[in-house]
């Protein structure tokens, strides 16, 4: 079971979180024209990298904040966590 550092609450067990997918995907702006290709990329196309990956998790049984987690998908090592408003390089 992973041990995830919520930027608001501190280290908590994975049980308290739910997974929310790739954090690098950016939704096209509301009320703006978007090409079908860009839209399809946003809705469906995801990379499945082996290694470092920035993901969204929600601290669902805690502060309910969505957070960013940089994790190695192969080893489960967590390098960094951040608020969603912060950047992970």
């Amino acid at each position, binding site marked *: 079971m992973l041990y995830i550092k919520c930027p608001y609450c501190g280290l908590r067990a994975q049980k308290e979180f739910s997974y929310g997918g790739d954090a690098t995907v950016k939704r096209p702006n*509301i009320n703006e024209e978007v090409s079908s290709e860009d839209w399809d990329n946003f809705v469906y196309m995801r990379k499945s990298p082996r290694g470092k990956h920035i993901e969204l998790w*929600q601290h669902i049984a805690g502060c309910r904040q969505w957070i960013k987690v940089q994790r190695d998908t192969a080893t489960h090592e967590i390098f960094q966590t951040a608020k969603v408003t912060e950047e992970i390089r």
Partner: protein
Amino acid sequence: MSQPFRLNKEGLINRNKKISFTFNGKKLFGYEGDTIASALIANGIHLVGRSFKYHRPRGFFGAGVEEPNAKLQVEFNGHSEPNVNATEMELVEGLSATSQNCWPSVNFDVGAINNFLKMFFPAGFYYKTFMWPKSFWYKIYEPFIRKAAGLGVASIEKDKERYEHKFEYCDLLVTGSGPSGLASAYAAAKNGAKVILAEDKPRFGGTLLTDDVSIDNLSGKDWAEKIISELKSMPNVTVKNRSQVFGYYDHNMLVMFERVSDHLEKKSKFTPRQRLWYIRAKETILSTGSIERPIVFGNNDTPGIFLSAAAKEYMKVYGVLVGKKPLIFTNNDSAYETALEFKKNNVEPTILDTREEHSSELIDEAKSKGIDIRFSHGVIVANGYKKVKSAKIGKLNKHKNSFDKIETVDCDCICVSGFWTPSVHLASQSGNKLKYEEKIDAFIPDKKKQQETSVGAANGSFTLEESLKHGFENGSNISAKITETKAEISIPNVNEKKYGAHDKFWCMPLPKNENPKRFVDFQNDVSVSDIEIALREGYRSIEHVKRYTTLGMATDQGRTSNLNGLQLVSNIENKIVPEVGHTTFRPPFTPITIGTIVGREVGMEYMPTRKTPMHEWHEKNNAVFVDAGAWKRPRYYKQGNETLFEASKREAKNVRENVGICDVTTLGKIDIKGPDAAEFLNRVYTNAWMKLPIGKARYGLMLREDGIVMDDGTTTRISENHYHMTTTTAQAANVLSHLEYYLQIVWPELNVNVVSTTEQWAGAAIAGPKSRDMLSKLYPDLDVSNDALPFMGYKESDFFGVPSRIFRISFSGELAYEINVKSDHGMFMWEKMMEVGKEFGNQPYGTEALSTLRIEMGHIAGPELDGRTIPSDVSLNGLVSKKKDFIGKNSLGREAFNVESRQKIVGLIPIDRKSSIPEGSHIVQDQNAKLPNPKLGHVSSSCWSVENNNPFSLAIMKDGKNMIGKKFFAVSPLKNKSIEVEVISSHYVDPEGKRVRS
């Protein structure tokens, strides 16, 4: 009744307390502190089971977790458990053990014929033989294998025991209380670290209990006791015996299995049987010790053959002799300690040492005690079927590949030692890349991935001095990094015997024309020839050899077989062991009970139960409940002998004719506040929200980004910047997360807050033509006329002294209202409604009637919003704004969503107006068509229309409304039904929606 193999004084058992038990029906006794194994051996019983494949007689081989053979069916404390390790299970009064995998008895086993037909059971036998013909598999092969190969029998009774889970955090977890574990825990504790020390056996001390050593002038055992009692007195230390750390998971999460009360005769009501600990440790010290490995020889599985250290443990811990005429067969010095122990107890051992004549401290001592030592000797084959009677031994030639001399000697046990294998299971599980240590012919931990450090024998250090030093140093250094305190500790003086070098010898050759079975893996019956066959047939990878031969795949995880298997493969392949590599170590290290994994999450505790504030009233009034997620909702209120069908019909009819009330507390409720709330709703819902006036509700539809309908519900504008959203019961949690996602990540610039208020409000729907009359009695001072409180209107008013919210919304399609009061007032509201509603014929109605009402109105719910439908599929395209953008809008233009023939919602009625259509039925043109019969759609919801007094269903069907008037079949192979149906509109009752506005 005497115990022929019990020593008079030796051992740590409590001779003042006799414990009686039975084995295969025979009444026996042992002492408190015995295991089943030690008590049976004391009674001279060695034959305890039959082997897995060949049903060969098997006895004890080890004295702890390494035991591959002695798995028994054990009944105690009122339950029966299979595959119990006899060398670990402590004796309790009244315990009854039986042999398994034998029929009709352990002494006469029909399956033993397999042993004589062994040419039919080579490696890969199952793969080769049972492959064809395919039809034979279910009827002949599988039952045969199951009957022949079964281990114990799982109980079919409900497990009455209590199991618990515990979560714990510590600075340092130490796994194993041998010398290095004790030293580590002690040093860390002195530095102020929060320490957990886990020992899998009942007694602390590990090898200190059996080795002839002294530490600071105390015996090993006394020193261990001193350290343990000091550790126990420290508030920062938790010391646990009977606790096996069996799994090492990500981020330093270790899981430990504690046997809390299996050894107790009587226990209090709430004492758990076993407990699972989830331990998150900052650092872990693995002091798991090592396990002796056997030397392979002919018939090496005969009862009476033991690991040499196990034989010593039986003497020193249990005061039991494994035999009175022992042969000690060894390639190293450690077995000499066993020989000396026998000698001390007046038993004359003979030592067969594969090494050439030489000298060492232990050899010299054995010689001086007059023990018969034969160098360059080994056991070729053991004789005796159910017990060792003699052994054919041989003097090895110079190359150790044949014999200079062969003779037969009498013996009643053989104690074998092929040197020591560090227990690296936990280290390997943690991701540590092991390395092969030539010096000890075994793998030891190397490059770590997590915060773990192996010390002592687990790290390949086999001297006490080294183990203690490593333990103290690592315990101190590792904990000091956490506590930033370093206490002064002096490493004690040690007195131990020096061992000479071991012989890299692991398998006896066979004389010409002799071919007894030589087992590598006892539990899975894998012999040398099985592995040879696998290699001959082209298997190369050790992982493939393992799967083909089942080597190391039994419940003992190859603890005694792994390295010998690797040696064999590398010999044949002309490789060295590190090139062959090792197979993966997987948790659990030892078998654990399913009950422990499940813990308290059984029955009522399987998941939380959510009850509405009116639950007790429902219970008192014969409600039959249904699970809606974690909620309990009244499905119907049973009157007399009513069936579900009759009751729901009565309740629904009463709503259509008079008035009914329904507990709608379970609906998801979300409070939405902030100056941008309207803008937010406008983006979340498909329809327009910018102009909703204060005091008005609106029905809204929510999509996912892929255009699929996510949820529907009404949202009411309570005040300028305050909205009250309702969701379906099932989607409440998902919708909240969905809203939080957009507010926190996508549009953080919107000034809006959302919070769940589901638990804060109790809700009741009042539905039916007489609902307004009833409402006016509930609110005598409020104008509830159609003009003052129109459809989708909202008011706040006092309900007999408590604040309440009145929403004029309807799920039933009737004139209806929903009243919300604070949860604490829910019961008050409900009882008041029942009282006031009497004169209008009010009756409560449950979810079944609620479904009936919504289905015949054509209102969609979960079965229609099944994750595949877009708004136009369920006739809700009118709610999709063309002017504004919203979540999922861009997806609605996808080609597949706009095909004319797309499956859409319709109504169905049976042609005979009688047959109910099972939900899930498929709609087909021709009920007799060849399979696969082309499917035109499926039935999503079914009810008995109380309005029209015949069955009615909603269906999602190809071509949708274009099919109206046509006839099809709704077929349900599951219910064995085929019903001719006609397609009609999905709005079966009041299609214009007049009633809700009346």
